[in-house]
């Protein structure tokens, strides 16, 4: 098949990049010069998990949710509250918390996924604002603006060791999210979801139960987002509604996925590496000024203008330039093939409408 040889350079480069990332990531806690850099690594990995989780909905179905920050916040608070009020062991609370988020996502998705396009975006924003209000106002239960302290799961560990353990936990969660995304991507379910992204009415007319598909993938996405939020709560240990239910969290997830490329397994990860690192750098350089937001905005504008499909597809296209292309809707036929074709068509006298 011609496409196999054509894809070779891009595929090899991709494989090398994945292996290189895995090697650097595994070694990172050992080569990080200080605990601060290691904690930045955790923050970036957290973004990567969040963005990959977002991409279950955004990448497959094309529904742009700005509300995933709320799902992460719900994951963080349900884990935190299950530990502090419920007395559950930390990692049991993490699992139960994520399942709770998935359960809450069923009615949320049931309502929100009925509208498309800009309406869905607005509904998803509303979700963040509502959860923020609830968690701020219900101070007797959530701690409100005073915050919620989540006890550390490993009280005996010193801070650098604590970071080290959580770095690997986040890495494992990322690997799990990527694995599930990949499994869906190659499945029939995934093909149905992509059909929804391309043309929902057409997919429906072909017999795809689009609403059920969207709801299922939304719940899967919420589960992983909840896990990421919960793991963050166990790592960071201090939750405040204003940060947990922030419209910025959801916006970062979208930005990272768009930057890397939403159709690619590793798109959100690449986006998180670039944007996450840049965000942390800007915070160090410019402190608490909103300059990091301006820089992020400029970055997004540049990507949308010059790489609308994201960094990874742009790189792939660049690599394909170095290999002979066979991408054409015009097929070259030899005289012999043409004669054979004419013979088979015979009396029907059908011209082959190659270019209709």
């Amino acid at each position, binding site marked *: *098949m*011609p*496409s196999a040889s054509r894809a070779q350079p891009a595929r090899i480069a991709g494989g090398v990049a994945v292996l290189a990332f895995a090697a650097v990531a595994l070694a990172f806690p050992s080569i990080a010069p200080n605990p601060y850099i290691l904690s930045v690594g955790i923050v970036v990995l957290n973004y990567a998990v969040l963005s990959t989780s977002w991409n279950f909905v955004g990448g497959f179905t094309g529904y742009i949710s700005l509300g995933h920050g709320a799902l992460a916040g719900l994951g963080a608070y349900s884990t935190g509250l299950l530990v502090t009020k419920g007395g559950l062991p930390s990692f049991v609370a993490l699992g139960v918390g994520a399942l709770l988020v998935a359960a809450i996502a069923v009615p949320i998705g049931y309502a929100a996924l009925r509208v498309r396009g800009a309406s869905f975006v607005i509904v998803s924003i509303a979700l963040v604002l509502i959860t923020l209000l609830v968690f701020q106002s219900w101070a007797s239960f959530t701690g409100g603006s005073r915050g919620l302290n989540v006890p550390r799961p490993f009280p005996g560990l010193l801070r650098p060791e604590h970071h080290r353990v959580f770095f690997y936990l986040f890495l494992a969660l990322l690997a799990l999210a990527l694995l599930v995304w990949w*499994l*869906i991507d*190659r*499945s*029939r*379910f*995934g*093909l*149905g979801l*992509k*059909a929804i992204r*391309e*043309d929902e*009415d*057409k*997919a*429906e*007319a*072909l*017999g*795809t*139960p*689009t*609403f059920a598909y969207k709801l299922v993938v939304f719940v899967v996405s919420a589960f992983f987002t909840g896990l990421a939020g919960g793991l963050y709560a166990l790592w960071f240990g201090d939750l405040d509604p204003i940060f947990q239910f922030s419209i910025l969290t959801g916006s970062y997830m979208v930005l990272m996925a768009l930057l890397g490329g939403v159709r690619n397994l590793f798109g959100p990860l690449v986006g998180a590496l670039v944007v996450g690192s840049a965000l942390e750098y800007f915070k160090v350089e410019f402190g608490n000024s909103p300059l990091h937001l301006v820089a992020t905005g400029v970055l997004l504008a540049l990507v949308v203008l010059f790489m609308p499909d994201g960094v990874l597809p742009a790189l792939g296209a660049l690599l394909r330039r170095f290999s002979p292309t066979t*991408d*054409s*809707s015009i*097929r070259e036929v030899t005289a012999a093939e043409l004669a054979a074709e004419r013979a088979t068509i015979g009396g*029907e006298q*059908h*011209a*082959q*409408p190659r*270019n*209709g």
Partner: protein
Amino acid sequence: MHSLETVELTKAFGGNLVLDKTSVSFQHGKVNALIGPNGSGKTTFFNCVTGLIRPDSGRVSYAGADITRRTPHAIARAGLGRTFQLCRVFPRMTVLDNVLAATRPRGANLLRGARGRAETDRARGWLTKLGIEHLAGIEARNLSWGQQKLLELAGVLMSEPETVLLDEPAGGVNPALLDRIGGLVRDLNAEGRTFVIVEHNMDLVMSISDHIVVFDRGRPIAEGPPSMIRTDERVLGAYLGV
């Protein structure tokens, strides 16, 4: 025997009454055609029948079952497949994936690979039958209009409908392609598939149909075999313009 039937189907957009208590029935195992002037409600009729638009009142039944309030995918799964007037394909999926997307997995099958051998062979079979197999690996947006029409047809056929509704299959395609589509409809009909075709190309309609229904202002004004429709005075006045 009637396969697809509507009883007093009514649909208005604002003050515009597009379907006016439309009662028609199409015959099972035949090539039925639905013709009429622009704006006579043919596409709205299709949309109401396939669940894309909710009718204001009236009833649609298929193979004896009431399908009026069913969702489009449930109607498709009941055996009614359709194409769209302004041909719709999945632009950023390959031609092969476009056809594969029409397979109907259920339950645990959903998590199996999308490109299983049996499905891929069947999808390629349809592409071959329609003469676009050589384009299988190309994104559908890079196809010409005529090729996209063939691709849309391949997708619908992949979903194995008992009855196929074609909305202007000949719109904007060249004469050779027209022959191919016409021939395919006849072949598939011979295998037992029912067709309902909305079409303006009278040569095609007259040559492939067994039964023709003529719409004018949302109501059927005549129906019968081509020989009868050709000479029906109401039809001549309303549509054929003679």
